[in-house]
């Protein structure tokens, strides 16, 4: 059946097909524009500025595949006891003088304030987060490492562990932190104490820290035994094993 509009004959079936075609074309155009807009939005100023910066070691400040956030995001995990009164940090393993410190004792050890970049495996980075605490090097010196100690296992609540090499652990920015951005570490970030290993993906920085164990042989930790990379270098995008 044919209709007439302004003297022209129109096939309704054909017109229906044309309308559908127009709708699909417009929907596809809208989708592309939205996707491009989202891509532009995601490439924000902070990320663009960080991409233009270079670290002292020559590496770009922002590892590949990361975008910059202003504050640390809580990334979950099974919370430990947040009470400083119940906190005990055990430093043990291949050491001459294993020891345990409570929260007040930890505060009496030499303190460090460092602005550190941290990189989460999920793709966000925070630049210059201000952590306060005790350098791991200080704790290692207090415990007097045995020559055969080659790796460090961070032990945390509910059996969580993370492993790094001793060489990486003794770098001057690796620390045990109890303050973030001028305030006591919050529960969401592992109160009362977590370790910070800034040059590796953030799962190496265990929240609700309970122990530091020096070992001779490497022991892949919680995420490392669940498909994540054992080394976890953000600049090499070592996310998965």
């Amino acid at each position, binding site marked *: 059946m044919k209709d007439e509009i302004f003297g022209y004959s129109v096939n309704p079936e054909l017109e229906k097909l044309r309308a559908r075609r127009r709708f699909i074309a417009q929907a596809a155009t809208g989708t592309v524009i939205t996707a491009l807009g989202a891509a532009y939005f995601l490439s924000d100023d902070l990320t663009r500025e960080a991409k233009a910066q270079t670290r002292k070691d020559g590496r770009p400040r922002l590892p590949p595949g990361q975008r910059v956030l202003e504050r640390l995001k809580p990334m979950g995990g099974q919370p430990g006891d947040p009470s400083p009164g119940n906190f005990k940090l055990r430093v043990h393993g291949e050491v001459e003088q294993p020891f345990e410190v409570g929260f007040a004792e930890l505060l009496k050890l030499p303190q460090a304030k460092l602005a550190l970049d941290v990189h*989460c495996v999920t793709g966000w980075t925070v630049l210059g987060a201000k952590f306060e605490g005790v350098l791991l090097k200080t704790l290692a010196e207090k415990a007097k490492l045995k020559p055969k100690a080659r790796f460090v296992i961070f032990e945390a609540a509910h059996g969580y562990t993370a492993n790094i090499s001793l060489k990486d652990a003794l770098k001057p920015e690796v620390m045990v932190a109890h303050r973030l951005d001028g305030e006591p570490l919050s529960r969401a970030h592992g109160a009362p104490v977590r370790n910070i290993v800034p040059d590796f993906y953030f799962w190496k920085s265990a929240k609700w820290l309970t122990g530091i164990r020096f070992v001779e042989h490497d022991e892949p930790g919680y995420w490392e035994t669940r498909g994540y990379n054992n080394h976890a270098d953000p600049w090499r995008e070592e996310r998965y094993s």
Partner: protein
Amino acid sequence: MVELHSPQQKRPFKLRPWIRAIHRDAGYIVVGLTIVYALSGLAVNHIADWDPNFHQVEQTHKIAGPFPENDQAAAAHVLKAFGITEKPTDIYRASPDRLDITLEHRTLHLDAKAAQVFEEGQKPRFFLRLANWLHLNRGKKAWSYVADTYAVILLYLAISGLFMIPGKKGLLGRGLVIALFGASVPIGYVILSGGGP
């Protein structure tokens, strides 16, 4: 005269009705688990954008002194100032100017020198936290059996689903095309993203 089937005469065995019946009942069994896993999956997939387990609280409040030297009395002073009647689980003086008052879902950190309290805490999101706890399966050996069984049932549902509909809407026609399209999504992603491991 009507000829009736004798009771001894067996009907020919047909596989498809069995597949459909088992598919239906297995589907009913895993409805609850599917909802738990799907919602938890969505929540955890976007964990970098929000915390699916907790509402976060972080606030700094001014507080009037002077503060009693006794820890219990100082804590009582702080709690009274904020109208908190909950009994602390721990009161701890980490340094002369710092008193930490731990409550069930929050901690009040008194900085006596600055006359301010930093309040931080987490309020659990009940359903999602429970769902994530099940989904992430951290150290729950017994739950692994449930999760494994669920995975096997899902495999059955997926495979049996292919054979449920006969004819051109089934595996010999439209069903095959749609199934191949579905399979092409993960395969296409791996290829376009530069390959897997």
